[in-house]
């Protein structure tokens, strides 16, 4: 097959137009750089739109708060796997980034004195873990929607150039390891173009569709993560996946933690507020991994609700109807639509549901992608940046706190944009020449897909992958199941290499897009399964049966051997490890401690 590849030149190309991509784009457009933003969907359809409860910032609008307390909570939430330099950076930048959004026009809810409204959220405490604090800045329960639209609108104002419904396929990387842009497909025509750039920012979001039951959108297929893996970039801490405690049972649709922030309570079949037993202090507002495990334990021990005893109930019937309709109108709508429940009168059936990828493409706090090199374990990949859920800075470590994801994409979207601008202005130089055969591998992949005969079904293969991940790398993890899971997922990988599509049209071929997405998903699934099997301790969201809670290793955590980041390499399907950055930028290290809420 001969395919013409049109080459376009830009100073910078951003892949993805969710929160992180749009925030980075504002930086580059305002600096006057020629920037292309590629996105599979119209920007306001990106999954940031579905975030509900809020964005963390220690504004202190309702009570005293401090970025240092926020930092402490984030380190503790991460089960000490987060890098403390990046965490300090994020928590210090939070106020500035949230205020900027307000200036862009984001319609935050307001306090009586006209300031941004803040609500409590899981794991956010005052005075180094003392008591819950109102830190989550919210626009009703539609914070992500309000934020994404405000940032898209700001981009219209600063004239950002979008390539809408373009799917990036691969990074272009030369022999020296420098990234020179991406190869992408225009979905409407099926044409292949190269975006030749001096800076490439990956902001493609999460990959939650590797699991069968997920709060994630269909588009969350780990495209940037897959592209990075194929380009020889390792993936960091992929064993850590957040299961959100409250997905609607059966449907998987998210119910914000803000519901519990506003006073909602989880109950088992006996009507008991069971979180009091698991987290006597924070109760329903303990960290997400803690609440999810408590829920699964209740269900496993026979205290689940419903005919199959397979869910618990989220109860807000005791809240004033005005509060629900004012602060949680979207949740009321979702409960009616997806659970068939009027939440004013009846509790909502919920189960822990795959929600967020803590790991991803390794970066430093400036948004630069870093990999092991000759001198250190964190050498910058020239020309490549990543931000948001696809990246791992790492601020979430082994477990992310609610509202820190919107903060992550703001702070690191901006930071990646700023760093790219600085680098481009510091050393202005012409575009480096594209290496010979730069498009070969991508074109071969497309050609294989177009000519595959007697292949596997995309739909069935994806389903097998999702069921495998659900069973073998879920909320609780078992040594035997993980070992088996590694074998199974490698089998699925073989099927992915032989997918066949019936539809061969050039025009908006969604079958082809789904097959290409599966190429990305499988990289994430393999990385997850292999990294999980290898980590022989329990930490944050990764809890395994053979690393139980003992006096020697409280909660099963083993800092002597496992206080380190996993790095999974596609080439050779192998793992390396690098140390966690325990030293913050200006303050003292938040010392290792047993995590309890």
């Amino acid at each position: 097959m001969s395919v013409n590849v049109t080459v376009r030149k830009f100073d910078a190309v951003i892949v993805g137009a969710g929160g992180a991509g749009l925030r980075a784009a504002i930086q580059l457009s305002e600096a006057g750089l020629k920037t292309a933003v590629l996105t599979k969907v119209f920007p306001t359809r990106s999954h940031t739109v579905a975030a509900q409860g809020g964005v963390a910032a220690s504004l202190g609008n309702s009570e005293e708060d401090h970025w240092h307390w926020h930092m402490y909570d984030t380190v503790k939430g991460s089960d000490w796997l987060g890098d403390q330099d990046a965490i300090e950076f994020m928590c210090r930048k939070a106020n500035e980034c949230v205020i900027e959004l307000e200036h862009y026009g984001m319609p935050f809810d307001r306090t009586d004195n006209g300031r941004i409204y803040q609500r409590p959220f899981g794991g956010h405490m005052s005075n180094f873990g003392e008591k819950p604090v109102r830190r989550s800045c919210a626009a009703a329960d539609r914070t992500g929607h309000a934020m994404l639209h405000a940032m898209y609108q700001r981009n219209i104002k600063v004239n950002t150039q979008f390539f809408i419904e373009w799917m990036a396929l691969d990074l272009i990387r030369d022999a020296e390891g420098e990234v020179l842009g991406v190869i992408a497909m225009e979905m409407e025509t099926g044409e292949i173009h190269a975006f030749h750039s001096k800076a490439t920012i990956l902001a493609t979001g999460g990959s939650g569709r590797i699991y069968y039951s997920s709060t994630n959108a269909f588009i969350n297929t780990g495209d940037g993560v897959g592209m990075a893996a194929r380009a020889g970039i390792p993936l960091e801490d992929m064993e850590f996946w957040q299961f959100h405690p409250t997905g609607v049972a059966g449907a998987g649709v998210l119910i914000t933690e803000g519901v519990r922030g506003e006073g909602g309570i989880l109950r088992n079949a006996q009507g008991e507020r069971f979180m009091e037993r698991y987290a006597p202090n924070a109760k329903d507002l303990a960290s997400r991994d803690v609440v999810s495990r408590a829920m699964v334990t209740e269900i496993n021990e026979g205290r689940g609700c419903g005919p199959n005893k397979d869910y618990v109930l989220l109860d807000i019937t005791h809240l004033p109807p005005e509060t629900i309709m004012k602060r949680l109108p979207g949740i009321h709508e979702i409960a009616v639509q997806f659970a068939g429940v009027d939440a004013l009168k009846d509790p909502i059936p919920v189960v822990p549901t795959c929600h967020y990828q803590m790991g991803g493409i390794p970066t430093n706090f400036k948004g630069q992608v870093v990999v092991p090199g000759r001198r250190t374990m964190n050498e910058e990949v020239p020309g490549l940046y990543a931000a948001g859920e696809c990246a791992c800075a790492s601020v979430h470590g082994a477990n992310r706190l609610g509202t820190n994801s919107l903060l992550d994409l703001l702070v690191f979207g901006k930071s990646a944009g700023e760093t790219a601008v600085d680098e481009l202005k510091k050393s202005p130089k012409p575009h480096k020449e594209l290496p010979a055969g730069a498009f070969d591998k991508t074109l071969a992949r497309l050609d294989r897909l177009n000519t595959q005969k007697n292949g596997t079904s995309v739909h069935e293969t994806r389903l097998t992958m999702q069921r495998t991940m659900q069973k073998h790398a879920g909320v609780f993890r078992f040594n035997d199941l993980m070992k088996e899971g590694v074998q199974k997922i490698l089998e699925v990988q073989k099927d992915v290499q032989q997918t066949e599509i019936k539809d061969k049209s050039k025009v908006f071929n969604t079958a082809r897009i789904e097959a290409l997405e599966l190429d990305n998903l499988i990289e994430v699934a393999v990385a997850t399964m292999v990294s999980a099997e290898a980590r022989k301790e329990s930490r944050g969201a990764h809890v395994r049966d053979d690393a139980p809670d003992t006096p020697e290793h409280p909660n099963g955590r083993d800092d002597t051997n496992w206080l380190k980041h996993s790095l999974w390499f596609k080439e050779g399907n192998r793992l390396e490890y690098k140390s966690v950055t325990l030293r913050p930028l200006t303050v003292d290290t938040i010392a290792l401690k047993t995590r309890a809420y």
Partner: protein
Amino acid sequence: MTTRTLQFKIYRYDPDQDQKPYMQDIEIEVDATDRKLLDVMVKLKAKDDSIAFRRSCREGVCGSDALNINGRNGLACLTDINSFPEGKPIMLRPLPGLPVIRDLIVDMTQFFKQYHSIKPYLINNDPPPERERLQSPEDREELNGLYECILCACCSTSCPSFWWNPDKFVGPAGLLAAYRFIADTRDQATNERLDNLEDPYRLFRCHTIMNCVDVCPKGLNPTKAIGKIKDMMVKRAI
């Protein structure tokens, strides 16, 4: 698990292969786990991978999967499959009034052009304060029913005025957005925004047919917002 069969008639057109559009008859087994039309469409696609449609969040906030379902615009992910009359095939067509790219996917360029034409961003030329601009809860409340728009285009593509003049009439979605900024106490460009709409077509092609209100999957009321803009025009003229 009990299953039943649903019959569909789906608008199909692939300019790469087809001379002209046609309606495809296709049926599919559904069970109790299939609640929404989008769930069933995903099943249909597993059966025939060439059926093209947009979808993303599957919970009614991203606005991707707007379609014409049995003659009425709506989101596939919020349409209950039990709402369909029994024994009749379910008709799925692309949103009316916009060019079809393929099957159920329409070209939304014109729709977004109109959205962009109202300058959908906050205009405030004062130097930004160090902290947030203050806004009372009552003033913030004015934005409810406006800011929640998901740009799905159900409203504009059900509006006869938009069908006739998609290049000149801003349409309900764009006008709702225009009023969202006019109503925002932080925005300083009310006059400029009203000037921008003072035209026989841009605003005044709205004849309060109210199809927009009828179909909005988020329960918003563009007609009311348009009425408020018209009131402001009148007040300004006096």
